[in-house]
């Protein structure tokens, strides 16, 4: 409540830009402008009388800040374009780190380097058209599989599930995906096997499940032996020994978006007993 009232008050105060550092972890709305830390110091209050005069007043140390999803550069400020919480990651080496907005979405937009699950929709000549849930189908060449040559074509039919990564994904060109990594090895990519169940969840849940310290996957793994593939486009493929177990796992993963960890533990313990 207090957070909302303060956010409301800030918005009502007008288009005064806020410092990015002061808004970390809080909700930001489209249209807000954020000042980067170095500008904040220059424009902040109490600047005039207290700071010592620097000899080289013109040159400011420019730290390179990376602008992630939900933010755009607007002059020398950051413009927020999506609703969500502002996050920051400290840099490993030099530089100012990454700022991004954690927002929730159902529709996927292809990004280079993302691993996704696609469904083959058409075979035309040497190219497969793969539906990845974006605005247009991605293209996949038949030579982009491990060990594929012109004589030795991969066995891919319309309707198959493919796990691959994007090599070309920008707003101007048709997305292209491949099933090999830069060394030419499959590395888990390729045609996903028979059986199993493919279902769709929100993008935020996928990112949460793929976080390094996610307990959900560890707990699910202790329940039943299973095979699971996560696509960054919101698609999950899961396969267990029986159909019933597969359906239970699918329901758990869909529901754990809206459950607290206590509720989840209750459900897991109940399932482990039965």
């Amino acid at each position, binding site marked *: 409540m207090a957070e909302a009232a303060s*956010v409301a008050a800030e918005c009502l105060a007008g288009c005064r830009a806020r410092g990015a550092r002061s808004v970390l972890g809080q909700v930001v709305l489209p249209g807000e402008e954020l000042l980067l830390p170095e500008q904040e110091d220059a424009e902040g209050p109490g600047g005039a009388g207290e700071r010592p005069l620097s000899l080289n007043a013109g040159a400011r140390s420019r730290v390179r800040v990376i602008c992630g999803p939900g933010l755009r550069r607007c002059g020398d400020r950051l413009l927020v374009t999506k*609703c969500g919480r502002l996050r920051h990651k400290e840099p490993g080496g030099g530089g100012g780190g990454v700022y991004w907005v954690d927002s929730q979405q159902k529709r996927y*937009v292809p990004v280079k380097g993302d691993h996704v699950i696609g469904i083959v929709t058409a075979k035309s000549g040497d190219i497969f058209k793969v539906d990845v849930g974006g605005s247009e189908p991605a293209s996949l060449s038949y030579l982009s599989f491990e060990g594929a040559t012109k004589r030795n074509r991969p066995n891919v039919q319309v309707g198959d599930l493919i796990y691959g990564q994007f090599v070309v994904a920008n707003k101007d060109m048709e997305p292209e995906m491949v099933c090999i990594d830069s060394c030419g090895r499959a590395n888990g990519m390729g045609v996903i096997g028979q059986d199993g169940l493919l279902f769709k969840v929100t993008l935020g849940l996928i990112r949460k499940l793929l976080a390094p310290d996610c307990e959900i996957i560890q707990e699910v793994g202790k329940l039943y032996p299973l095979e699971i593939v996560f696509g960054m486009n919101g698609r999950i493929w899961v396969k267990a020994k029986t159909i019933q177990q597969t359906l239970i796992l699918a329901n758990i993963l869909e529901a754990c978006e809206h459950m607290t960890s206590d509720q989840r533990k209750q459900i897991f313990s109940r399932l482990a007993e039965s």
Partner: protein
Amino acid sequence: MEEEMHTDAKIRAETGAGSSPRGPGCSLRHFACEQNLLSRPDGSASFLQGDTSVLAGVYGPAEVKVSKEIFNKATLEVILRPKIGLPGVAEKSRERLIRNTCEAVVLGTLHPRTSITVVLQVVSDAGSLLACCLNAACMALVDAGVPMRALFCGVTCALDSDGTLVLDPTSKQEKEARAVLTFAVDNVERKLLMSSTKGLFSDAEGSAPSTNQSLPRSSSSAWLRPRRLRNTSSASTGNRCRGVTPRAETSWGRGPLPPPPPTHPLQPEANQRPSLASRSYGLM
């Protein structure tokens, strides 16, 4: 999916509004918004203003037919379905207004050759329909994660024969008014994005809203609870409305009809113009 949004109880308590009937000019009906209530669209929202309720769904950025694609930005489509009957000319003109407003704020250049479709369904109409549609469309675009350069809100005003301004009029007030004006305002600099006017009003009356003195200022603040998006709108009403003492008021429910408002001396300008005009300004 139970994600009912409530207006801020603290703000309600501060303004001290009970079930009193609406005073002249500066108060809105009770409004509420619920997001993410439909499972098929990428974003959805239901906006309620008094008894007027509109449901909005957004699909996008999605595939577009080659005949409709634009090479450097997204194609925005708005479909407005009335509660009863087939969509007619009035719906088409409202669709155009809403589409122009959305095009001004949505960053279409980030998704060229795609389509963003906003589908609006009128659930109940009790006055201020266009404003409610604008608000529902904005909330649904936010829920879908479409990149925008600002948020916008819609508000309808009715001018009655005495020159008193009533915000968020009911259907009865709209019928009895001599002019009904609808505006869309963005949240960054409170600039006017769209105006749609119908009726007889003078230039002075018509330009007052553009100075943002008598428009309610509404801001949306979104919480991200664990895996849930809750949205609340808090409204504080504009205060300088023709000499009425500053007060913020949110009305609850429909009380008895308000007493006839005190007449404010407003010299009718010589050039009163009847107008059925709609202008979209866009963001410059």
